């Protein structure tokens, strides 16, 4: 479903991704962990073409991602992205946030877009908040709207970029619950997170990114109980 081949990325002279190669199979849930600044979020942003890469290839379902081409819009329609800072549209209600792209990108008639949006908000447990504006919602609710907004496009792949990092601790659970339901429903997901409990519970596979490279990868249990890489060992110790 997703394939990265020797991807390199520079921000000016800063070499942030140094030859990332990875694959995600259909229906697989891959969690990416690593310290701040290791490049893990950049990987997701490159997959969605929000950042151009300078070397290597990224394929989504066999389709080449080129941040500079028009075609990248087609790919983005099929790849959901959820941001750390929610990025809801402030002057649209929850329902309008979810239905906007259905109307203007997918060109669905308004009542059909509305129906899908209602269904998605119901899935994330916000049926009672259709008419609420983002500033009337808690962080956890806003992030669930953002997830519903991405899901409404019926993506083949969902990318989650530290989606609980900006939330108050008591609100993290409701968002992780939605993600867990999604994973159990068979969605292909790449999740960048610091929530190790979630990683252990949901991930099929874990990648540890260190200084722009994948330092270790393996089945979830192995990564947490028998890490080989020294940096991974110290990382796990530091957060548990």
């Amino acid at each position, binding site marked *: 479903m997703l394939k990265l081949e020797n991807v390199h990325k520079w921000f000016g002279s800063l070499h942030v991704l140094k030859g990332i190669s990875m694959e995600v199979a259909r229906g697989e849930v891959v969690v990416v962990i690593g310290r701040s600044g290791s490049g893990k979020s950049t990987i997701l942003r490159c997959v*969605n*073409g*929000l950042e151009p890469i300078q070397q290597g290839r990224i394929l989504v379902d066999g389709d080449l991602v080129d941040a500079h081409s028009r075609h990248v*819009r*087609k790919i*983005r*329609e099929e*790849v*959901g*992205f959820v*941001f750390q*800072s929610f*990025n*809801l*549209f*402030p*002057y*649209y209600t929850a329902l309008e946030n979810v239905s*906007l*792209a259905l109307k*203007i*990108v997918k060109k669905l008639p308004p009542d059909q877009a509305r129906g899908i949006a209602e269904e998605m908000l119901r899935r994330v447990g916000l049926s009672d908040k259709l008419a609420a*504006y*983002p*500033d*009337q919602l808690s962080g956890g609710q806003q992030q669930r709207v*953002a997830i519903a*907004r*991405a899901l409404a*496009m019926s993506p083949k792949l969902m990318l989650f970029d530290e989606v609980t990092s900006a939330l108050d601790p008591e609100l993290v659970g409701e968002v992780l619950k939605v993600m867990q339901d999604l994973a159990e429903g068979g969605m292909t997901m790449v999740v960048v997170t610091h929530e190790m409990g979630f990683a252990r519970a949901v991930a099929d596979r874990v990648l540890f990114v260190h200084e722009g490279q994948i330092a270790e990868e393996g089945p979830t249990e192995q990564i947490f109980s028998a890490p080989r890489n020294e940096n991974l060992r110290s990382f796990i110790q530091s957060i548990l």
Partner: protein
Amino acid sequence: MPEIFIAFSYKDVLYLLQAALVTIALCAMAFSCGLVVALAIGLMRTARRVRVLRFVAAAYVEVFRGTPLLMQIFIAYFGLSIIGLQLPKFVAVSIPLILFTGAFMGEIVRAGIEAIPRGQWEAGWSLGMSYGQVMRWVVVPTAVRIMIPPSVGFLVQLVKGTSLAYVVGYVELTRAGYIVSQATYATMLVFTLVGLIYFGINYPLSLASQRLEARLKRHA
């Protein structure tokens, strides 16, 4: 002693009010046409990929914002006539006013667009929207709200700025005041009245903008 001038009367007040309508019309025309220019300038100045557009727009803004409006009107009327292009007064006054509005409002448009956080763009793009779609559906609804206070500030400046049309003899409120004061010698009275009429145009503008702002501020 015979009367060598006519006494100030209600007819003069009517004349001034009529001239105020000219000022308002001039303003409305300059602002609406200038807004179209400003929109183009604002979009050009925020075009990320095309450097030449940014440069042209920036040069335009610097020229028309950096020179006095009075000079611009002067050049449009007298300057162009030297090279054989004699514009009618209304046109010679309108063009500088429109270009002047385009430069100032263009900067307000640019500031409004640039005030929108990058995350809003990325959210739109990640849903498959094009640059134009994000601009139209995500950026503009927020940017417009940011632009209202400085726009009204500029509009008030513009109302007063139209008084500069007097240099070419175009009869708007200030010119009319001058004509009446010449005829009646009631100079202080006339210009106090003129000042009050300007205030009477501008104050409702400020009030309307405050109301609009408050209404749009919800959910910021």
